[in-house]
């Protein structure tokens, strides 16, 4: 008993080091004034473009000072992978904390272990299990219990974070001309609140607080950019409960497994990554089964489409040696059969996408633009043209996003088959202790479709087009890039062909 007491005392005392210093340094009076121009970058997790548009409609972030753009984020729309891609930080292993490692053919951070990593506070700047992008932010938390508070009482935690972030921003802007911050509660607000009104009001408050900051420091120009890592569909769960995807796989004849090399009772099998409640699934299987599993999984009622890499249609064609090929599967209207609805290639030499003559993209609401040439028997389309053609569809930037989702960009071990679920049919995910995660019932993200994809990009720093590809954030905002480098983030290359479209 005495030993336990002493242990508890030691833990508290060590924690208390930062507690005391936090109060100490923040109680030191600051000098007046500061650099004339301050560049501020605020990352708000999971805020949809529609929420930002609604806030603008209510008078927040008024034009012409502010510009709002649709921010086309990666597929699958999941926070850790997307922030890693935005910030060009060290790729995480999979799309979530829970991931499949092909080197040892096993799933890591399964169940509650992976979930708890979301709320585990880091005890040092360079250690711990956190993804590298966190290091990009000057402000990213308000204490050891920030994660628990954020999931436990999201509403209160969001405003508390807003409070603390502005104290740090106002203070640090006396000394430096740049500041970065990240808040995660906005994502949980979207998952849990019955409508997007709470998020809209939060954005209105943020806008008001920015105006107060400007009024208090008329001698300083605050150039502020706000971005999010994915959208939110605001479609509550349509069936009684979220989808247990493994059960659904079993029904269509795919055995859910935890490793690929073990014995399997069915001919088709795949590893599934469960983790959190999102509208996508990450499946791994052996190369010879990829196409068949992708086509079969598309039969699952909750599935919108499945995507996977495929072999070149005419593998012997020497013109296609520098190409990669991708297919999309979906089911028919009756839901009884599934088929490959589109196959396209990507020519690395020319940064152009290849489609067979007669390829039908109407399923996605996309009309192919005029071809800019061809390769072998295929018509070629520029990345920029396809971005323009697809940006307003329900599958924005479809071809780039499908291609890069299956590449090792911001993730070390990309999926074999990515499943995009229908809105309203999220995967169940793992529950936190006490069922806290079960509050996520009102809106989701992850799928290929627009609502969960389109985040926000709000800025008064520069002009932006109406739709921006999120991969190009650092190229568009070089001061942000410089700041995160100064903060010690090691930059990793993104997709080599991302620039040029949507920036």
């Amino acid at each position, binding site marked *: 008993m005495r030993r336990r007491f002493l242990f508890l005392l030691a833990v508290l005392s060590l924690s208390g080091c930062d*507690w*005391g210093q*936090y109060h100490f*340094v923040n109680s*030191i009076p600051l000098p007046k004034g500061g650099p004339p121009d301050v560049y501020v970058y605020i990352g708000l997790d999971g805020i949809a473009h529609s929420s930002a548009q609604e806030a603008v409609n209510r008078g927040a972030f008024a034009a012409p000072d502010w510009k709002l753009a649709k921010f086309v984020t990666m597929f699958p729309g999941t926070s850790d992978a997307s922030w890693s891609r935005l910030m060009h930080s060290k790729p995480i292993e999979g799309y979530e904390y829970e991931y499949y490692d092909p080197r040892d053919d096993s799933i890591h951070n399964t169940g509650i272990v992976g979930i708890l990593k979301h709320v585990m506070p880091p005890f*040092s700047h360079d250690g711990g299990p956190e993804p590298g992008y966190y290091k990009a932010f000057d402000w990213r938390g308000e*204490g050891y219990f920030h994660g628990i508070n954020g999931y436990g009482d999201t509403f209160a935690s969001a405003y508390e974070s807003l409070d603390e972030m502005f*104290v740090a921003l106002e203070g640090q802007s006396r000394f430096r001309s740049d500041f970065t911050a990240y808040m995660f509660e906005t994502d949980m607000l979207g998952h849990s609140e019955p409508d997007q009104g709470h998020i809209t009001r939060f954005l209105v408050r943020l806008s008001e*607080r920015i105006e107060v900051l400007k009024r208090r420091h008329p001698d300083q120009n605050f150039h502020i950019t706000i971005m999010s890592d994915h959208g939110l569909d605001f479609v509550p769960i349509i069936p009684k409960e979220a989808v247990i995807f493994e059960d659904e796989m079993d029904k269509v004849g795919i055995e859910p497994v935890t490793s690929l090399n073990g014995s399997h009772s069915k001919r088709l099998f795949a590893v599934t990554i469960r983790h959190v409640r999102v509208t996508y699934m990450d499946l791994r299987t052996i190369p010879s089964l990829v196409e068949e599993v992708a086509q079969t999984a598309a039969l699952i009622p909750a599935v919108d489409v499945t995507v996977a890499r495929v072999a070149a249609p005419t593998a012997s064609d020497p013109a296609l040696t520098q190409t990669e090929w991708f297919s999309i599967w979906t089911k028919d209207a009756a839901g009884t059969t599934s088929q490959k609805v589109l196959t396209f290639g990507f020519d690395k030499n020319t940064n152009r996408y290849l489609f067979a003559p007669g390829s039908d993209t109407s399923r996605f609401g996309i009309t192919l633009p005029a071809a800019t040439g061809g390769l072998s028997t295929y018509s070629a389309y520029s990345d920029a043209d396809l971005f323009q053609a697809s940006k307003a569809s329900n599958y924005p930037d479809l071809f780039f996003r499908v291609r890069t989702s299956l590449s090792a960009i911001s993730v070390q071990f990309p999926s074999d088959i990515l499943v995009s679920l229908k809105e309203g049919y999220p995967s169940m995910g793992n529950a936190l202790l006490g069922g806290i995660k079960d509050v996520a019932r009102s809106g989701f993200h992850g799928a290929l479709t627009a609502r969960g994809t389109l985040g926000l990009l709000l800025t008064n720093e520069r002009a932006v087009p109406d739709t921006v590809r999120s991969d190009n954030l650092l190229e568009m905002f070089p001061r942000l890039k410089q700041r995160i480098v100064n903060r010690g983030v090691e930059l990793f290359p993104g997709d080599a062909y991302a620039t040029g479209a949507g920036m």
Partner: protein
Amino acid sequence: MCRNEDIVPNMLILRTVFLMSFSLGTALALAQEASPLPAAPSETVAAAAKPRVEQPTKRLNTQGFYPLWESTGYVQPEKELFASTIGVQYGFENEGHVGVMPVSYLYRTPNFYVKHRLMTDPNNRWQLAVQANLYYVLRGAARSLFSPVYTSRLDNSDFGFVMLPVALAGSYALKNWWLLHGTFTAMGIFGGGMQNGVESGLSLVSEFRAFESQSLLLHLGEVGFWSHDFWYTGVSYRYRSDSFEFRLGYFYRTFVLGTQSGPMISVGFLL
């Protein structure tokens, strides 16, 4: 829980904590038998009208808890070494003590302080002292927090500076279970990227004693006055036996643009 975002959640928590703390503290104090004052000089001394503290109790509250802006009127008794995480101090001649804040050294802030008793009420109701601290905040100290979930509004990545707060602190025993500690501080700040000058602050701590060894303390402070910077408030618990002290508290710091909050803890031993 109230779901109106127009109400700052911190303020709701704050009011609740204050109301509960006052109620609890008063109830605890009234529920117990009167206990001797912590700072009482001996009756002999009082009778002789000599305002000199001979052998004060070892349970004196000789340190402020909230950093920089709080102190008390009491000093460490002669030849006592009290080592706590918020200050290691040694008493001399019953007139004062000298010390350092050890944890601040871990955060690149060498420091030293001296406190001297100025006056003691012959009736043992109050005591007045002056304290001067000297800090050299080394380059990068403000960013030396171990965990990135704690952030400083100060960024001295490329400069160091000196702080010299001089505080006039008094403690007054309204009842044998109720003490008030007030501190007026003038803080000189010099060098580096800081603005050379003097900032001032005032703090008030209401200490409710219970069961002889335990106290509930309510903290309130203002920094900046006419050039208002922030005000703070908080509540803390203090346990003190003859040889051991433990403190745990929670503080809010409110600026015009926002609020910071967090717990504080300290552990100390009388050696």
